[in-house]
Every structure is written in C-alpha cells, then in structure tokens.
C-alpha cells in the first residue's frame, strides 16, 4: 500500500476522471423519473450540470493557489478536528459509493448476461482485481487507465459502427424540445450524483502539474462523451431506450457487424474496464482521505480494514434488492457529493478570507507582519 505521494500526469488524471464519469453515462439515459422529459431538455441539463462542475473546479483552483494540497489537507489546515471529521465522512461516502458501483456492475452482469450464476462468482474475482489496482498505487493505475481509455474508445467506436445502420435521423427533432422543468431536473440529477467532483478534490494531490485546464479538458471530454452516447442511444433506439434499464446494453444487443452479430459482449468488456477504473479511483480516493484520519502507524491496517468493509458491504448489498435501493438513495439521492465538495470549499474560502482580513488589519495597525 503506497502511503507516500505518487504523481501522475495531467492527461492521465483527466482520462481517469472521464472514464469514471463514463460509467454513469453508460447506464444513464436522459429519462424522466415521472413522466416524459424532452430529450433536448435532458441534454441541455446535462451540459449545464457539467458546466457547473467546471465552475466548482475553478473555485477550487482559486483556493489551491499552487500549494499542492487537496481539499482534505485544507480542512485539516484550518480546523484540525473539523478536518478529521470531514476526512472521515468523505472516506465513508467514498466507501459507500465504491460499494454501490461494485454492486451496480455485478448486478447488471448477474441480471442481464449470466442470470443462472451466483452473484458471488462474479463479485469475488472483480474484488480481487480491484484490490490489486489499489495495491499497485495510483501511478500504475493511471497508466492502466490510459490504455483502458483507448480500448474503451475503440469498443464504443465498434458499437457505433454496428448501430449506425439503425439510426433514425428524424429522432433529432427531439432536440428542439427544451422545457425548463426537464432541464432543471437533469441539471440537478447530474450534480447530485457527481462523484467525480470528490475524486477531483481528493486525487488532485497526486497531480504533478496543476493547471485549471484539467477541469476544462475534463468538461469537454466528459460532456462530449455523455452527449454522444445519449445521442447514439436516442437516434438508434428511439423511445424503446426509455423502457430499458440498461439502454446502452440494449443498443449493443441490437448492433450488428458483418463478422460478429450482436456486440453486447464488447459492451461487457467495456463495462468491466470502466467499472474497474471508477471503483479503483474511488478506493484510492478513500485511501487518500484516510491519511487525514489515521496515524501513520495505523494507516496500513486501517486501509485494509476499510477495503474489507467495502468488500463485505458489496457482498451484502448485492444479495438484497432492498439494501441496494437504500444504498442508491444514499449515494445518488441526497446530494452527498455536492455537499461534501461545496460546503468545505466555502468554509475554506471563509477561513482564508478571515485570515487575510486579520493580517491586513494587523499590518495597518503596525503589528508584526513578517
């Protein structure tokens, strides 16, 4: 387990976040929770939601100021007890989010592809690879993620070529329908479950060269990917997509190349790769957050205990639909990522403003200012 800081490149960091974000959009399809939402509204909401993420990221950069700290460090710096509490809460949320992603992925496998087999048969090897990813550290993980990005892009391109024949251009008309209620609903949905924001604020500690262009690149790639996938699903499947629990999977099932018919197996491979990136990123962020809670001597055992808890939770939640729904509500339904990102950010801004004000006044009064 790497306790020291390993550094990764800017492009690697962006790709890692984009892949994590792609996980949501492979299962996400802009649909209404109650009633119909115009497709145009949901796309506009999605873009605005990502823009808001970019804005919050820019706020963090205004605070970060080249100090090399992440949000956890800032909290510890300004208020140690509060900082430890924040790090603890963040670690718990990241653990829950990791368990939720693992369950979501393995339940998909168990429901759609291998319904005859046991849930644990798929969970155990996946957990094994995840733990290996955490053990090798973020540097090796980021290198792996870069290769996965290329593989994922190629696989998605393959699915695109397999479905492009089914595209119905008349469905583009749906873009013209933009309603404020639908737009607002999607905007909120994008923000309330955006775990990437927390990954950004936690894992930024490992970024070798910090420039605000990280958020810019992330915005363009994530938004482009999400809009592209949604558009492809909408154009190829039309309203049938809204009836599906996994619309992109339905798209892959309907696709056909001359060599292979049905590309759902490619989809399976993409999702394994992307799920791995998302969950490992969450677990690595969890390890980073735990650095602010645990003493050096207890760090390794603490991390192993946390990983064991996440594994146990994944096993328990995957077996019960009620627990899974509860976990989904906690992770996606209560604005936890946004709260855990925005509140401390505002607090640190406030503390910094107070400190600067104090120093300014002190200087004016002729007190010692060095």
């Amino acid at each position, binding site marked *: 387990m790497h306790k020291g800081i390993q550094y990764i490149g800017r492009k690697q960091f962006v790709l890692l976040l984009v892949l994590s974000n792609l996980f949501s959009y492979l299962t996400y399809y802009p649909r209404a929770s109650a009633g119909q939402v115009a497709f145009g509204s949901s796309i506009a909401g999605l873009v605005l939601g990502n823009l808001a993420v970019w804005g919050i990221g820019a706020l963090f950069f205004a605070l970060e100021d080249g100090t090399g700290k992440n949000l956890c460090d800032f909290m510890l710096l300004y208020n140690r007890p509060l900082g430890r509490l924040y790090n603890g809460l963040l670690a718990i949320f990241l653990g829950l989010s990791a368990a939720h992603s693992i369950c979501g992925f393995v339940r998909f*496998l168990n429901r759609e592809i*291998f319904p005859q087999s046991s849930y644990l048969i798929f969970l155990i*090897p996946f957990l094994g*690879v995840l733990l290996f990813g955490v053990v090798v550290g973020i540097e*090796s993980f980021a290198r792996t993620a*870069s290769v996965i990005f290329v593989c994922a892009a190629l696989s998605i391109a393959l699915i695109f070529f397999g479905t492009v024949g089914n595209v119905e251009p008349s469905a583009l008309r749906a873009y013209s329908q933009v309603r404020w209620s639908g737009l607002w609903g999607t905007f909120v949905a994008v923000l309330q479950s955006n775990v990437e924001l927390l990954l950004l604020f936690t894992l930024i500690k490992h970024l070798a060269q910090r420039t605000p262009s990280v958020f810019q690149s992330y915005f363009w790639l994530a938004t482009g990917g999400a809009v592209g996938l949604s558009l492809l699903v909408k154009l190829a499947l039309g309203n049938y997509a809204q009836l599906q629990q996994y619309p992109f999977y339905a798209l892959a099932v309907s696709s056909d190349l001359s060599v292979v018919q049905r590309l*759902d197996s490619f989809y399976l491979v993409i999702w*394994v790769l992307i799920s791995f990136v998302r969950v490992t990123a969450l677990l690595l962020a969890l390890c980073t957050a735990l650095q602010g809670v645990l003493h050096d001597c207890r760090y390794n055992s603490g991390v192993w205990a946390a990983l064991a808890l996440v594994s146990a939770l994944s096993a328990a939640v995957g077996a019960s639909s009620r627990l899974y729904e509860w976990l989904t509500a906690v992770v996606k339904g209560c604005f936890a990522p946004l709260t855990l990102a925005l509140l401390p950010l505002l607090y640190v801004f406030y503390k910094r403003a107070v400190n600067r004000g104090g120093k300014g006044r002190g200087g004016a009064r002729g007190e010692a200012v060095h």
Partner: protein
Amino acid sequence: MRLCANLTENIVALRAMVENSSDFLNKSIHLAGHRCELVFCEGMIGIGTLAELIVEPLREYRDAHIQGPEELFLTLGRTDFLAADQKVVLTREEVLQFAMSGFAVLLIDGCEKGLALGVQGFNFRSISEPGNEQNMRGSREGFVEAARINLTMIRRRMKSPHLKFEYMNLGSESKTDVFLVYMTDKVSAKVLAEIKERMGTIRLEAILDSGYVTPFLDKKNASLFSGVGYTERPDTLCGKIMEGRVGILVDGTPFVLVAPYLFSENFQSLDDYAQRPYYVTFIRCLKFLAFTISFLLPGGYVAVVTHHPELLHKELLVKIIEAQQGTPFPLMVEALIIHIIFEIMREAGLRLPKSVGHAVSIVGALVIGDAAVSAGLIGTPMVLIVALTAVSSFVVPNLYEPVTILKFAFILLGGFWGLYGIALGLLALLLNLCSINTFGIPYTSPISPFGKAAFRDVFVRASWTTLQRGHSGIVQDLPGSSVQSDGGHGDA
C-alpha cells in the same frame, strides 16, 4: 595470502590450494642463475603463444648476469618483447585467478611477487550468425561465449572514446568475468549506479550464464515480464547502448544482458532500421497483433463458444457445434489438453538432436493432430486455434515464456467466466505491466505514459531523416521516467 620468498613453499601452497588438480601445471626454468617457475592452466593458454612470447624471449636471460631476484623481476617487468598484457601479482589467490584466466604466472625464487603474462589461447566457438536473432539484412556476426572476443566485436563497431568497458568479477567459486559496457556520455549515472549496486548484491558461488544475473537486476519485479533484456547481436547491443542503456557481458555465454529494457523493445529488431519505414510499421502492427493472438485466442475462443455463442454468425456457429459435437471433453479441457501436448512436443523437439527433433514434429503434427481429430477426441477448429496460436507466439520470441503461461491462464478464465473472465484477466495483466518500473523508467513507456516516441519507434517506425531531427532516443528521456537525462555521467 601473500606470496613468500621461498619458491618451493609457494608452489606447494598453490598445489595444495587447487588440491593437486591435474590441469594446474608448473614448469621450472633457470634465468640468470635464479630458479623460476612458470605457472599456468592446461588448455587455457596457447602453447604457441607461450613459446613465442615467453619461453623464447626468456631464453636470452638464461646466462645473463643479474644480481638479485628483485633485480631480475624488475628487468623482466621492463622487457617489452614479452606478452603485452602484464600484471604484477602479490598473493597466491591472484596467482590462481590469473592462471585460471589464461595467464602464465612467472614466480622467481627469493622474490615475493610474480609476473602474470597474458597468453590466453583457449579454444572457443567461432563467430557465427546467432540462432535466435536472425535478420534478413545486416551483419551475420553474433556474440560467442568468450567475453573478451565479444568486447572486440563491440569496439570494432563503436570507435568512440565514450565507449567504456568496466570489469567485474562475480561468483565466489567460478570467478566469472563480467563486463559492463556503456557510453559515458549517454548513460544515466543513476541507472549505472543502481545496476552496479544490484550486481554487488550477487553472492552466488558460480555464475554460469547471464540468466543467473537477471533476477538480481530485475528484483522488486513480481511479474511474468522482465525489465532486463538480452541480445546475441553486437550491432543490436551497440544500438541499445547508444540509447543510454547498459550492456552486461558475462563470460561463458553469448547472451548479453541489456538494462533498462522496455516492453516495446520486444517488438523491435535490427531489420526494422534497415527496411523501409512503411513496411516496418506494418510489421510492427502485425507483431502486436500476433502477440495478442498468441495469449488471447485460445481463451477467447473457449469463452465465446462456451458462454457467448450469440456473438457468432449462425453458419459459423453451426460448423463449430458440428465439429465439437462428437468430442468427449468440454471445450476448456480440450483446449488445455491440446496446448499441453503442444508444449510437450515443442520441448521435446527443442532438446533432442535436430534429426530426431524433426521426427517428433512430424509425429506431433501429423500423427497426434490428425489422429486425435479422426478419433473424435478433439474438434477441428481447436486444432486450427492451436496452430494459429503457436505460429503467432513465434513472431515475438522474446515474449514466448510469459505468453505460454498467460495462454493457459486465459483458457481457464474464459472457460469459467467467459468474456468477463477474459476482461478481468486483461485488467490484471495491464495493471501488472503498468506497475513495472525498470531502473526508474516505466516498462510500458512510451505507450503508457504516452509519448510522441510511440509514433516514432513503437507502433510506427519513422524514417531516419525524421528520427535524426529532435529525437534524442535516450531511454531516460521517455515519458514517466524518474531518471531524467543528466547528460551522461558514466565516469562519475
């Protein structure tokens, strides 16, 4: 133990140290009235050279008038018509080491030191084309077992004053000669120091092959892949050291180690730099494809046919099902059996004399393969898969060892979990590859972390006119390297 003035005592002690070994010889001669002994090992020296460079010139001193033994020693040391390679030895251990390295050591009664004279003349295999690295164009020379001959082959190609050979002696019993070779203006001081440090940890009694040294250079690397490469070609080694790498020549083996060694280098050969870039680019892509096929095809086939038959077109699926219908084993077991048989055949063909080896190949290909299909034990598509896998695995021979193990692992993963297992296996493999750092340089660089070098000499081989523009080619300048180029401090 230091040599003493009494010559008889020295000879008795030396004989005792080698337990009176029959190849250890000493010849008495008298020079200027002093009793001398010439000590050497049989077979390690050239008898003609000994007679011409030592015995004949020494004959002139037989009746010379030289006062004491010390004066005789100094006179002989100044004599310039004796063997060019001369060393003064002070201890009995040194006498033995030089004698066993092909030197004749002259000991004088009354003198507490000896004179080692290089008259190496042992027989060695003549220089020939290396069997494992054959090229269409370029030199036909390959390294031989004698390290000193190998040094001349390198020096002949690199007449630069920056080329440096550094001698080391490894193996407490074998006292094997090992040479580090590098360009002082290209190599990173950090890399060189680390290599020396790791070689300093070798405590083996005997170093009989360069493979004995590899694990010490490759430590902290729990992987099927190695961060240390090897070559049998002097031109390839010269190319590597020009990129800031270090060559390690071990006496007794024609395989020279190269460190640091990256994953992408397994797909490069000297021919790549002699042929047209567009063709080399095509060949490189072909090699990457062949590597993927060699470990993934059997597992992928098992996974698709067993768990995802919906992927295949109806006609193809029907043909596969027809072929597999009469076979008694599940597809995964069938794949394992046939691949194990293939590995047994390969191993048998490799170790047996060539004439018998061919017979084994014929038995394997025709008798077992054909008979197994005719008897309905194995399906025809599986034979095709094995053949394709085998041919592909020989395209990148450096990776044969990891590919063999991975092939079996992927068959098991595909058989148990289908494409899900294959995807997990690929993930674990990727993670493992990406976690290797060879002397501070990522093993997968410049593929990941990605660098422009990937489009210069990995997937694509740019032409020499492009390569000479702004392309240092130095290994420590690759993306992700923690050993940045320091302008070469090999002398540091």
